């Protein structure tokens, strides 16, 4: 493990659009940036066997997830010439239509920001110990599985 300070990525509840706006406007003083790429995951109101998903309840093995995220962060900064990288993932109950994942990368030219953002999302889904429990409208549930 590196000596760098481990950044927290977890937020309780959904990620608000206003939080995203604040995060964007924080970058206006970084005048070497030419392109920003953002990915947001939103909870879908899926229908499964006739039942409707009303929310996803997220839990995580937080310490392990933050260690893994730090590894991803370092690998991504080594691979792409990024100015900035920000990741936020929700814990707790996130209702359909709300945002549960926010990945934000910035670079001088557009390509590294776009490619890094894409790769971070893939790695988050495959490597971070986070679990989503789909809550149906009738209060039953099903554990989500990423494809």
């Amino acid at each position, binding site marked *: 493990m590196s000596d760098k300070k481990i950044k927290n990525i977890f937020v309780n509840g959904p990620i608000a659009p206003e939080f995203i706006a604040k995060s964007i406007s924080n970058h206006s003083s970084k005048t070497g940036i030419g392109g920003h790429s953002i990915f947001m995951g939103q909870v879908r109101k899926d229908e499964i066997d006739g039942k409707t998903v009303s929310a996803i309840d997220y*839990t995580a*093995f937080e310490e392990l997830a933050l260690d893994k995220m730090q590894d991803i962060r370092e690998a991504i900064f080594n691979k792409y010439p990024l100015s900035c990288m920000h990741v936020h993932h929700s814990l707790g109950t996130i209702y359909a239509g709300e945002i549960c994942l926010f990945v934000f990368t910035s670079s001088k030219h557009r390509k590294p920001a776009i490619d890094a953002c894409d790769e971070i*999302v893939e790695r988050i*889904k495959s490597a971070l110990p*986070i679990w*989503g429990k789909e809550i149906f409208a009738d209060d039953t549930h099903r*554990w*989500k*599985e*990423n494809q």
Partner: protein
Amino acid sequence: MEIELVTFGKISELIPNQKIEVEASNTDELQTNLEQLFPNLASMKYKLALNKDIVQSTQELRNNDIIAIMPPFSGG
């Protein structure tokens, strides 16, 4: 020796967090023990973590180690 079990996701509904006595010197032996103790586990996909490191190949166990049992991840 005693180890502490921590479970997540779907597996947390079958196996609550608990301390257990095991006869196992490494994580491979522990896995066999766990699947005997909790027969449901044998048919599930899961990974173990030892003291917050994911177990890739077998690791030696010490008294009071913490073992996490993790079903497939579904974040994002």
